């Protein structure tokens, strides 16, 4: 991988990583952790949806599985938090692979794939809401025991850096995918699946790898959510909100780009905070802005903010050269 590809990642990491050094307000750090968790979930969506063109409307299935696996293993089986975190990621990836195997084998794509992922997330939500091991509707608490070996920290700044480290790791992973043979095949599937198949690409295998990676990353976001808030219930874990967040951020930021999900998540939640400040505490007002922004983005910026920036740079660069 060239330095040119890693430069923007480094800049983004330093910019965000420096904030806790200067700001100690809890609201700001909370905002950062939450936005980074969303960015991580969105990065997962981006691998399958952005690069692979398979629009999932049910990434909550993976977020929730990561979250519940981490929480249940810790609180019911007393397994170490870091191990539970890793198992959560693996569980999410496995669920992703299974859902992918079932739906891609049946040739589902487009709207049908969106619907089936949505339905899986709903089934998980209903099950988690009704079964005993997940704590049912009351949810599940992870015991407060602030020690580094428990993946619990007194300082919120540490959480910012951990979340950031995960986001950066996935940024590097995505940049690597973009340049790899697997990434090229994935984009070929997005652009024209029939043609890719005719050229000898094992499209099923490519899509399955993509959904497992995608689900694993989003599951990491879910497990991180549990470590930070120490609580999870079915509507948080498997609710539509997280499926929508995971999809919105890449679409707004730029689907199928390395930085798109992070840029989108920061933009959306920044905008959400601004709207809430301007409009007062009217419930749902920030989401009204999200919905409007999604429509505007699809209409006028099909490649998101990253796409707009590229177009702008090309125009300025072209003007300077002439």
């Amino acid at each position: 991988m060239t330095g040119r590809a890693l430069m923007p990642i480094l800049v983004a990491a330093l910019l965000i990583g420096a904030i806790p050094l200067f700001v100690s307000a809890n609201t700001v750090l909370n905002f950062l952790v939450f936005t980074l968790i969303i960015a991580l979930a969105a990065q997962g969506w981006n691998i399958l949806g952005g690069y692979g063109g398979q629009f999932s409307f049910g990434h909550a299935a993976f977020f929730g599985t990561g979250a519940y696996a981490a929480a249940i293993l810790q609180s019911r089986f007393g397994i170490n938090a870091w191990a539970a975190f890793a198992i959560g990621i693996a569980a999410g990836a496995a669920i992703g692979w299974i859902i992918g195997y079932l739906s891609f084998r049946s040739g589902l794509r487009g709207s049908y794939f969106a619907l089936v992922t949505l339905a899986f997330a709903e089934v998980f939500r209903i099950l988690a809401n009704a079964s005993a091991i997940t704590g049912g509707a009351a949810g599940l608490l992870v015991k407060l025991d602030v020690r580094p070996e428990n993946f619990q920290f007194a300082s919120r700044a540490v959480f910012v850096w951990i979340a950031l480290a995960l986001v950066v790791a996935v940024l590097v992973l995505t940049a690597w995918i973009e340049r790899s043979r697997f990434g090229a095949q994935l984009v070929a599937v997005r652009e024209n699946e029939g043609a890719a198949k005719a050229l000898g690409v094992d499209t099923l295998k490519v899509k399955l790898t993509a959904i497992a990676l995608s689900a694993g990353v989003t599951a990491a976001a879910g497990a991180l959510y549990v470590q930070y808030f120490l609580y999870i219930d079915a509507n948080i874990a498997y609710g539509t909100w997280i499926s929508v967040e995971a999809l919105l951020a890449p679409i707004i930021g730029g689907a199928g780009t390395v930085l798109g999900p992070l840029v989108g998540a920061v933009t959306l939640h920044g905008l959400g905070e601004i709207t809430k400040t301007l409009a007062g505490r009217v419930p749902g007002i920030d989401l009204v802005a999200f919905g409007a922004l999604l429509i505007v983005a699809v209409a006028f910026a099909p490649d998101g903010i990253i796409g707009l920036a590229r177009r702008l740079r090309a125009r300025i660069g072209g003007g300077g050269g002439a």
Partner: protein
Amino acid sequence: MLYSPAIVAEAVVNGLMTGAVYALVALGLTLVYGVLHIINFAHGALLTAAMFAVWVLHSAFGLDPYLAILPLAPLFFGLGYAVQRFVIGPASHGDDGNILLVTLGLSILIENALLAGFRSDTRTIATDYGFQVVEAGPLLLSMPRLIGFAAAVAVTVLLWLTLSRTDTGRAIRAVAKEKLGASLVGINVGHVYAVTFGLGCACLAVAACLLMPTFYVNPRVGNAFVLVAFTIVVLGGMGSIPGALIGGLFIGVVESLCGLYLGDSLGQIGIFLIFILVLLVRPTGLFGAKA
């Protein structure tokens, strides 16, 4: 667990009556899918909006929910026409993935605008006939739900006749079959798309009027219906009107029986399992043409 035949029969009949209104909601969805080949994710939010409209007309002007069909069906037809013509159409540039995203954006927008405007309280309408029952042999049937059943079946037949007998219906079917050919013989495709979307929304308005005497409304109520409607549409075959009716009745009965045997919290799971199964095994549905 074994229930007496009378209880099971009552669950089946109740399921049929709920199913008819489900069918009406699904009808709008399947119509739009059959013609525009898109899944309208804003369908649930539009239903919620229609239900709030019924509630507002009742609480502000004392208008009976059934009479509210008269102003609301044309109003929602116009609304749907405008949304497709001026928002979904232009914003999506004719790309299927974009249409999916634009309707998702609309759904988030409408749902949360309603939340901001009406807050999350659950509201109901009290009518004189809300708890009236009709005796049919050993069964006691709720009067408003019986009316809902009859009206939903009537609207389905009416819509089917419109599509098969009128010029507008022929134009809609022509666009559904072959967009380019239809535009070559002088059919305005953009207009037909918008009319179809408008008809879908008018179905929702009628469904909302039929639901409100026995149901409640809050900003998220549409979500529950839209997932059921997706199931019905997939089960009945995307684009098939008889499929939507039969699928709706079937799903109503499944939900009712699952509720009886599994309890309320797991009652809906039967629907989603059917949904996933049909999608995986036969995505063209029971009545749909082979893809």
